[in-house]
């Protein structure tokens, strides 16, 4: 059913505001092409919109004291606990912080002591000078890289044959 001019008013207004569907846009344009009354109404609505925009264009935004306003707002909103408050609450639970504290202390001790421990010195055996087996022990005389003589005394069963 074809819309009458009376029904067309609201649709025409929405059309001028860019608020119609594609189907309605085509309907309005078809109607406007032949209806002089609606062409006149469209011009009037357009002009009224312009007048309204002009009249409201120079209304300035009020000055708002944000600092005071925000302080009041923030004090009345429940934002939940902050990170610090959450940590504090966690620390108050003994079964969480006791083992955590012990573990932290143990790690700290390890970290501090490690640099003071002398590393294990490895000796490169270059050659065996002599083997003497008297009194059930094996004696090995060895010259290391530094040419310092090293004497090993081992039980006979572990000695090198």
């Amino acid at each position, binding site marked *: 059913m074809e819309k009458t001019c009376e029904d067309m008013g*609201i649709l025409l207004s929405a059309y001028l505001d860019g608020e119609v569907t594609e189907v309605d846009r085509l309907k309005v344009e078809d109607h406007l092409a032949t209806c002089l009354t609606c062409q006149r109404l469209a011009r009037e609505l357009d002009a009224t919109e312009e007048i309204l925009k*002009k009249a409201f264009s120079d209304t300035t935004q009020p000055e708002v004291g944000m600092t005071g306003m*925000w302080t009041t707002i923030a004090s009345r909103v429940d934002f939940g606990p902050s990170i610090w408050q959450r940590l504090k609450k966690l620390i108050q639970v003994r079964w969480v912080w006791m083992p955590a504290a012990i573990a932290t202390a143990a790690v700290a001790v390890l970290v501090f002591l490690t640099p003071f421990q002398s590393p294990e010195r490895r000796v490169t055996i270059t050659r065996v000078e002599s083997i003497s087996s008297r009194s059930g022990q094996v004696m090995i005389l060895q010259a290391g890289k530094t040419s310092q003589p090293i004497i090993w005394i081992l039980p006979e069963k572990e000695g090198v044959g």
Partner: protein
Amino acid sequence: LVFLSDEQLVSKCQTGFRKRHYASVLCERHSAYVTKFVLRRVDDIEVAKDIAQETFVNAFNSLMKPPNKEGSFRGDCPFKSWLLGIAYNQCNDHWRKSARRHQKSHVTIDDFDGEVSPIQISSEQGNPEEKLIEEERKAAVRAAVAQLSELDKTTIELHLDGFRYEEIAEITQSNVNRVGSRIFYAKKKIRNYLDKEGLI
């Protein structure tokens, strides 16, 4: 944080670690417009500031609620529209409590006697006569809009501020068709008034 959209800020406000901080950014971004929106309804800057403040308190308390709870922000409309919806309800509450509402609700555009406040014209700006006519028309238009019903006035003002019909429907808790109808009839009333006054 200026590069973050409202939706991103809202999301951070709901789930982030610095909720308070993100909320303050949202407040700073919208406080001037919300106050202006309220001021058009209450005509008193101090009352407008109080209502705007109350709007933000309600909005942020709702944001802190889980999304499925009643009154919480569901994110199905822009944050600004949702905020203005709260402001609009706050204004209605204000009028319900105030005796001024009674006074206002009984005046319509048809009762308007055409008297507007005196206009200050500076002779330095263009032709004073043209300027006077222009200023007269502006004052008459503003006065005509002010005499519309609260709902029509809110609808036309939001429309002039660039809100889409759908957003206006969200703010005024109406539907898109009714918004379209209100805008059309409000424009017709204003045009008829200006025509009668010989201003167009």
